[in-house]
């Protein structure tokens, strides 16, 4: 299983990637939608965990682009806001919508659920 983490908070995604790696999950990270697009070349990620609100390409925009490019990819949204509009948009377009801060065990459970494990 290979995961892509995308959030403009670099310390968040690097720590999260390391913690997933300690749990046996291969995770790469990017700090922008544009950087994520460069990583997603061969469509070898099973799940992308995306921050909803990022400078430049937002999580919602990135999700639309990535799902067009890699139809089998699953998505989990992360948000700090938890506003009603974010929740509706995120819930409609992803397997799961989590509010920061997130428990790594919850995230892992949602990742496994998304890939049908």
């Amino acid at each position, binding site marked *: 299983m290979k995961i892509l983490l995308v959030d*403009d*908070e670099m*310390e*968040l995604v690097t*720590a*999260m990637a*390391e*913690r997933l790696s*300690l749990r046996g999950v291969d995770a790469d990270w990017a700090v922008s939608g544009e950087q994520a697009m460069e990583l997603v070349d061969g469509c070898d990620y099973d799940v992308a965990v995306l921050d909803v*609100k*990022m*400078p*430049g390409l937002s999580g919602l925009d990135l999700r639309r682009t990535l799902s067009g490019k890699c139809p089998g990819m699953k998505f989990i949204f*992360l948000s*700090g*806001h938890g*506003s009603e509009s974010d929740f509706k948009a995120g819930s409609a377009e992803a397997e799961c919508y989590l*509010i*920061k*801060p*997130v428990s*790594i065990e919850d995230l892992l459970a949602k990742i496994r659920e998304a890939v049908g494990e």
Partner: protein
Amino acid sequence: MNDFRSREDLQFFGRICASVSHDLKNVLAVVNEGAGLLSDLSLMAEKGMPLDPAKLRSVAGSIQAQIRRGDEIIKGLNTFAHSVDEPVSSVNLAEVVSLVVSLAARLARARNVSLEVGACDEVFVRIDVYALEYLLHGMVTHALAHAEDGGVLTFSCSSPGGGSMATLTGAGLGTGAELPGELTALAGEQDVVLAADAGTKTLELVIGKEMK
């Protein structure tokens, strides 16, 4: 003040609080992952994995940096919250400009624009501080709508000819749509002048001077 203006005021307060809460959520999320990583590393050490002291210091340093970041965010929110305490008071324009820049930083980042404080003379103005913050933040919002992707907006303040002035400079400014009506109306109520100058690519807020 009519009900509509009251609601606009409240919406502005709400927007600032929502933005600050988002920033604080991010701070908490980074602290959560840092603390979680330390916990993970200690669990791995119990299972025989060697601990790297430099790694531990780095993660602890990251947590401390986030706590400082959160503290600055909360200080800004506290200052903003107290700006409605008095109907009119004497404030240092440079400090208010700096506060508004920090409160609007997330908004600017979301548009991929850098918002900076430039040269600011220490000049005291007597004004409704909340209205001043509303106007300065409105200038930023208006500027962001017309700023170039990757551009820079710089807020500076000065005291030309006995008055005081906050100036927002950046490519694209002064050439876009007219200033929003609620901003120019509020400026009129506060006896200040808000103007856009396409030639110098600036938005200017001119306020009467108050001696310290």
